[in-house]
């Protein structure tokens, strides 16, 4: 018995060693945002069905993805990165310094929704009301910042339901949270005179106030998993959740989105830019890898084909909100001609 175990071990080591280490890569590697992940994976799968090796897609977050992507050129670095925001100047500089030329492709929009269970009451809010409900500190009667005193929705406005404020949302590591505080909370904070003045005087201090979510139990960090939030909303009709539009779209039978500044979060409203809490999604391709890693150009073509990102494409089924026709055309043209990003 001992001998057979020993020989098995030897054989296994031999197999491991013989499979070789640094083989030339023939598979596209993609990293980046977890928001774009569901869309890029869908394209990767389709791309793999046409005969090439299916790209490997990792969800590392936008910032983490940029770091890996801009690390340099070569087989050890990813070929694409997903981003739920445009590349920052600093990141672009890192990229350039390391000899990486990113090609920017804007692939579509994503809306962030505030939603609750169908069995609960529908809600209509302005961004200012969202800020009053969820900010850690709000301007008091004299314009000075005080700890948020609002316990019930009706404390903010008598027209809102007389129910406890209870909102489940993602943690600060999430891109959805970033976008929510930037679009909804900042947008709401700007509506207050004292904060608007602060924004002009000291942008950093303003951001600190606008981005600070309550910590007294009215806002609950529910983890990165949006499905978990959906399940908790079903169990508690009084609670609201913050998540990406695709989750509302896929769970339309259970959830209803709150109207924000008078607009329902629907496919059409987000696509038209009427719904206020939405952002653009991007992918970045590494120009230096085109022609080196097989399938780079074909992957860009697949992503920018109408069959994928068009209004009737399979990405729309996954919840991606397509760009307007003209913009899609120009983005596709720039991407296919490998035009590098310009700031």
């Amino acid at each position, binding site marked *: *018995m*001992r001998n057979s175990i020993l020989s098995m*071990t030897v054989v*296994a*080591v031999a*197999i*491991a060693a013989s*499979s*070789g*280490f*640094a*083989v030339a*890569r023939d*598979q596209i*590697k993609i990293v980046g945002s*977890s928001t774009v*992940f*569901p869309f890029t*994976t*869908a394209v*990767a*799968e389709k791309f*793999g*069905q046409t*005969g090439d*090796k*299916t790209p*490997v*897609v*990792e*969800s590392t977050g936008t910032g983490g993805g940029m770091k890996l992507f801009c690390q340099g050129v070569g087989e*050890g670095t990813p070929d694409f990165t997903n981003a739920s925001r445009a590349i920052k100047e600093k990141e672009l500089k890192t990229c350039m310094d390391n000899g990486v030329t990113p090609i920017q492709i804007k692939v579509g929009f994503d809306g962030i929704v505030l939603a609750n269970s*169908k069995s609960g009451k529908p809600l209509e809010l302005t961004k200012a009301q969202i800020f009053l409900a969820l900010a850690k500190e709000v301007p008091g009667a004299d314009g000075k910042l005080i700890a948020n005193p609002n316990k019930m929705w009706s404390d903010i406005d008598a027209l809102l339901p007389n129910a406890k404020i209870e909102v489940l949302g993602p943690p600060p590591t999430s891109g959805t949270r970033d976008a929510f505080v930037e679009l909804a909370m900042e947008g709401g904070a700007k509506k207050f005179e004292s904060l608007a003045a602060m924004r002009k005087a000291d942008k950093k201090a303003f951001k600190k106030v606008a981005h600070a979510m309550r910590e007294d139990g009215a806002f609950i960090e529910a983890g*990165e*998993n*949006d*499905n978990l939030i959906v399940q908790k909303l079903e169990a508690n009709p009084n609670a609201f959740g913050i998540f*990406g539009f*695709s*989750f509302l*779209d*896929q*769970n*339309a*039978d*259970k959830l209803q989105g709150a109207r924000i500044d008078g607009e329902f979060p629907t496919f059409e409203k987000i696509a038209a830019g009427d719904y206020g809490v939405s952002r653009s999604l991007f992918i970045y391709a590494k120009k230096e890898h085109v022609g080196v890693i097989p399938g780079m150009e074909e992957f860009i073509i697949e992503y920018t084909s109408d069959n994928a990102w068009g209004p*009737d494409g*399979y990405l729309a089924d*996954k*919840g991606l909100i397509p760009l307007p026709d003209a913009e899609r055309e120009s983005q596709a043209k720039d991407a296919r001609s490998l035009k590098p990003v310009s700031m």
Partner: protein
Amino acid sequence: MTDANPSFESADQITDRHTDGDARTRLRRRYAAEFRFKIMGAAAVAVAALFLVGLLSTIVGQAIPAFRANFLQLSVDLSPGNIDPADAKRADYDKIVRTALLAMFPHVTSRQERRAVRGLVSTGSGNLLRRAVASDASILGGTLEYSVPVDDFVDLYLKGLLAERSQYAQLDSTATPSATNGSASLTLDGPALYQLVRSSGHGQTSEDGSIRLTSGEPSYLLEINGGVAKLQEISAEVASVDIYRPLQSAVASGGMQVRVIEAPEAERKISDREIVWIDRLKDDGLIQNHWNTIFFSGGASREPELAGIWGAVVGSTLTMLVTLVLSFPVGVSAAIYLEEFAPKNRWTRLIEVNINNLAAVPSIVFGLLGLAVFLNWFALPRSAPLVGGMVLALMTLPTIIIASRAAIRAVPPSIREAALGIGASKVQTVFHHVLPLAMPGILTGTIIGMAQALGETAPLLMIGMVAFIVDIPGGFTDAATVLPVQVFMWADFPEPGFQQKTAAAILILLGFLVMMNALAVFLRKRFERRW
């Protein structure tokens, strides 16, 4: 103490401190304490068992739908007109599937309806057909009955998991349809249907009393003359309907069946039209529910109906193999050396303390180490089971060393002394006598370490194994993922179909674990020796 046999009946005469009244009270208390302890122990076990049963039944209950799937049988035309036998790979298989599907719905003409028909089957159907042809070219040349998986929402509807409650009502009033397809009107001879809608309070009533049902209202499906129509607007005499399944004739019908779907169409992921079509296909026996082979043999996918667990199972197997091959020999050798050969001095004590501390290091730290050393320094490929196995081996090593040392220490010294006494060398003593006796304990420790490694995702995050990987890995350097990562990723996808897949993947992971444990138990039984 004159009575040789003192009985308790005469206790009042005896003043022994072990038998007097106080003693009895004490005894009773001690028995009561013992009884209480037993009850609490049993209760603790019962509560634990209850939680376990609760957990397992939830998972199993959720997982069962994922093990079966619905398939639609199509007559696909594989004649040379469609597929050039010399270049079968390039043919447009999506189109072949689409044509076969549309042939089943000859009454469907509008572009939108055709899109809806295409949406009934999985978007990967064409690709599955391509693979079927590639694996067996002899099916080319004629028409083939081929089963393709249905779309994930259709599958959920057929499994009764999509929010949908129906009520049926039989009406005896006569209705005369104006057409057999498209939009039509029904002339009603009685107000029964109108009253049914009116009494339910659904829809908007206009001034003349007619009721309009929008997509935000519950749906009324009328089964009439062998077809199905959806009620749009109704007054006491006439109803306007959209026909979703053509009627066999336009003559007056004697009665109709009304089906009310409470969930409004706008809030469902499946439309009334699709429900009518699916029910017809089901009635015709063209949709069959069978064992979900795709789930057990496929790799990851973004479509729930195409997602399979096999890629992750292979990835886990490869990773565990690397972990075992690295950590078992190294761990056991280290334990033997430290226990049997190493001098007991300050250095060995330092090493011992460090090993014990390593066992308590959070697993993500090993991932960071793997990223820094294996990926950046050794330049090994990202996302590869080889690197994953190496990282997990580092994590498993302390567990194996500690367990192996305990097992070696538990071998009685008499065994060693006897072996040394008859002239065996130190190495012979250890390898011929001590190690075989310690083997059961070592295997137990190994399996605990391996089971821990099997369930890890955190260290793999850093080395790129938490990724979407469709192709099934063929070797140790191919990109791969592992079972717990697959569970984690499926739990995160928005499509409701993945919820069942998640539970099913958890069951597969548990099964994998049970198999690993069974192997260890088997090996342990073979090595077990009593003394």
